[in-house]
């Protein structure tokens, strides 16, 4: 029995960053909006309070805030010929659940893509020649250019109160900021975080090598900050408990700390937690999603919520799943190249790192903020260096710093140290406070054989098929990783450490066990052609006018940069299109 509810103006599926932003923009435009969140309601006061919020075992290891894989997961195979098996325990990536979504437990790294990242295919073809991009590399341009999106990046950074320093202010390059970034109209809303010992060592070494160090933009408040919504965030305590944790000080930007206070106070918004959306009710002829069906996870009862506008703001996999089950776009098939849904699933080429040890320096890794609390360089990122003759495209941001010193997971020892026993103890006690990591986050460019569809065998707790991920690293990724590994080694040696590990390089199959990054992208990508993309430049479904899809599932490929900055900017961009265009004239905003 499904109870049909009274129609509302708009429904948001998922109440994380994108759901909160869209709900806020639509309620401001006068709409009545319902937010459906599969998980529990979570507030900083109730759920992220001291002292329990510092429980490393509960949050970082036992994964308290993440999607419960007992109920929902995805399956993986490395190639189309293999049989996929479910990811039974989260490891490689950590999707959120509950109000705030992953925005409650992220680290806070908030980037913009570079102008060439936005126009990736045309940029590479113009610089390296028409045939330079291999046939299997199915990269695309974002249909929205950097310049078009710049005001929306700015808006999202102001919502979050991002700490940082501009490196390109209206075309003027500024030393100490990221000189490779696209031109910004405004500086960051908050000054950079304090300098860490690791960051200062990185800054000196990379300058000596002729690189351009800067401090990574961080949604961790260097100073208390009041955002344009009138919400005040606290100053960061450098507690070293960002990623995997909530913030008791409201000093890390999250839906809770930035936007939910105003949204929840608005009568036009209604939050329904424990509301797990099972399916979209699609009317193909009308080109609309008429309603969403959800299960109240407290009672098992099913409801149908009709809505004028549907905002799909779940994580990458559920965005794809809900569209696939409703038959809204054609499933991508790697054999023929036909179909758009599930196409261009990408991840991140991570795993490049080197650990440096300094006998005479106190690092204090436990005094840290989440967002790569150190110093970055972008000299090896994107197309900031000449790829002529290298045999690969893309690059990586490189960062040296500390995000935490929580010893269950963070206790570096020099190479050759056993993993246990007396010698392990000696080395751990000796080096815990004297080491840090230089890491890299590499671009992952789309490959013909990497995609999402439905698993034929395994099901979730609602009886729906799991999303099946067909994914592996390919030639471009391995070459990129070798190149970045060499760069890391060079930087590490320039630091003149007492000891260093040999730079780790990505080799072998994608492994779901060690944590790599929660930067899963693609599957419902944005583009200009309905045959190869799922949503248009406004994130509007080509086949359902009133369906707007949020989040990194719309990325045609993954840049090196952590996705949240772009996710937020695109959410504001889409919201502006809905409120200024769609509400006046409901229908396709781009003719397909």
């Amino acid at each position, binding site marked *: 029995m499904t109870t049909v509810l009274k129609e509302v103006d708009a429904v948001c599926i998922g109440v994380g960053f994108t759901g909160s932003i869209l709900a806020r923009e639509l309620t401001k435009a006068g709409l009545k909006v319902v937010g459906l969140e599969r998980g529990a309601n979570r507030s900083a006061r109730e759920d992220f309070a001291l002292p329990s919020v510092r429980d490393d075992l509960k949050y970082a290891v036992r994964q308290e805030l993440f999607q419960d894989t007992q109920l929902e997961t995805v399956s993986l195979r490395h190639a189309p010929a293999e049989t996929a098996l479910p990811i039974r325990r989260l490891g490689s990536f950590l999707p959120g659940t509950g109000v705030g979504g992953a925005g409650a437990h992220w680290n806070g790294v908030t980037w913009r893509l570079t102008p060439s990242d936005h126009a990736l295919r045309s940029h590479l073809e113009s610089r390296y020649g028409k045939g330079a991009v291999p046939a299997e590399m199915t990269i695309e341009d974002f249909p929205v250019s950097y310049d078009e999106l710049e005001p929306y990046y700015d808006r999202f950074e102001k919502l979050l109160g991002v700490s940082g320093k501009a490196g390109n202010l209206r075309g003027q390059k500024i030393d100490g900021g990221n000189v490779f970034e696209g031109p910004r109209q405004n500086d960051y809303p908050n000054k950079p975080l304090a300098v860490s010992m690791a960051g200062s060592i990185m800054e000196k070494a990379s300058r000596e090598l002729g690189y351009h160090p800067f401090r990574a933009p961080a949604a961790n408040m260097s100073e208390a900050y009041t955002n344009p919504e009138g919400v005040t965030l606290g100053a960061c305590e450098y507690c*070293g408990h960002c990623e995997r944790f909530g913030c008791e000080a409201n000093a890390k930007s999250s839906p809770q700390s930035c936007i939910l206070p105003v949204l929840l106070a608005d009568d036009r918004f209604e939050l329904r937690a424990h509301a797990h959306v099972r399916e979209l009710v699609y009317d193909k002829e009308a080109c609309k999603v008429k309603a969403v069906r959800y299960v109240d996870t407290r009672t098992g009862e099913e409801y149908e919520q009709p809505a004028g506008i549907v905002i799909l703001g779940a994580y990458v996999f559920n965005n794809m799943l809900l569209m696939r089950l409703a038959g809204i776009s054609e499933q991508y098939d790697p054999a023929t190249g036909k179909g758009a849904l599930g196409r261009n699933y990408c991840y991140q080429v991570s795993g490049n790192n080197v650990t440096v040890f300094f006998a005479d320096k106190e690092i204090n890794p436990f005094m840290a903020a989440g967002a790569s609390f150190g110093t970055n360089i972008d000299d090896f990122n994107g197309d900031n260096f000449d790829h002529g003759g290298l045999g690969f495209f893309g690059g990586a941001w490189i960062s040296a710093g500390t995000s935490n010193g929580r010893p269950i997971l963070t206790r570096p020892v020099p190479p050759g140290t056993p993993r246990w026993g007396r010698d392990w103890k000696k080395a751990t006690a000796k080096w815990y406070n004297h080491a840090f990591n230089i890491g890299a986050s590499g671009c992952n460019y789309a490959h013909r054989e990497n995609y999402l569809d439905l698993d034929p065998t395994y099901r979730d707790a609602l009886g729906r098929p799991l999303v099946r991920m067909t994914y592996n690293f390919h030639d471009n990724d391995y070459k990129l990783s070798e190149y970045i590994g060499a760069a890391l080694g060079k930087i590490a040696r320039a630091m003149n450490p007492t000891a260093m590990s040999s730079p780790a390089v990505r080799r072998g199959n994608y492994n779901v066990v060690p944590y790599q990054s929660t930067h899963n992208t693609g599957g419902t990508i944005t583009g200009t052609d309905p045959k190869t993309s799922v949503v248009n430049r406004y994130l509007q479904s080509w086949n359902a006018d009133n369906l707007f899809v949020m989040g990194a599932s719309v990325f045609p490929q993954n840049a090196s940069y952590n996705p949240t900055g772009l996710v937020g900017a695109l959410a504001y961009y889409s919201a502006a299109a809905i409120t200024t265009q769609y509400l006046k004239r409901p229908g396709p905003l781009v003719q397909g």
Partner: protein
Amino acid sequence: MADETIPRRDFLKGAVGTAAALTTVRSVPAEAQAASQAATAAAPEPEPLLTLTATEHAFILAAVDTIIPADELSPSGSDCGVAAFIDRQLAGAYGMGARLYRQGPFPKAKPELGYQLSLNPREFFRAGIESANAWSRKTYGKEFDRLSETDREAALKAMEEGKAPFDGFDSRMFFNALLQITMEGFFADPIYGGNRDMAAWKMVGYPGLPATYREEIRTYFGKKYDKPPRSIADFS
């Protein structure tokens, strides 16, 4: 084997020397320990167990003390409460398979696909300890916890390197799970029963709570932070 029918725990209780000491010595303040010994002149209470059998407990005690031996840096793993931690974790939600997708089928899988067995962690450790002890009997003629320290080290190393052929699954898988949960117990907040007296945090210089360093991030730049650690319990 005949002696498998004898409850392991009773056997250990009756024994003297190393094995008995392993089950009983706990890290309590020296004064209290002296007082208790003076009062009763008997061995301290054995640890109450929630789920581990006596045989499993003996194995875990021996394993955590080999992984974390007592030295000038810290008491042994079991004296730090790591065996108690493991018993509690396996008896609770984690042990019962919380956050573990358990729908079949369960075909043999390449390791990059992660854990693919139908066993929850409690069942996994039961099977793993059985296999480890069976291998130990075959190789050394006795169970793991009755081996000398040198042999225990060699046995764990063989498991770590996949050179201990286990019945059922790869010994590396079991060893890695054992190492992981031992380190969790050693380094987690003491509220879970391990890391007694914050011994592991003292060993590395991790200050624990409250971790509010807004001033210290500047005043301790490049300097050792030498405040004694505090636990969640100290703020509750």
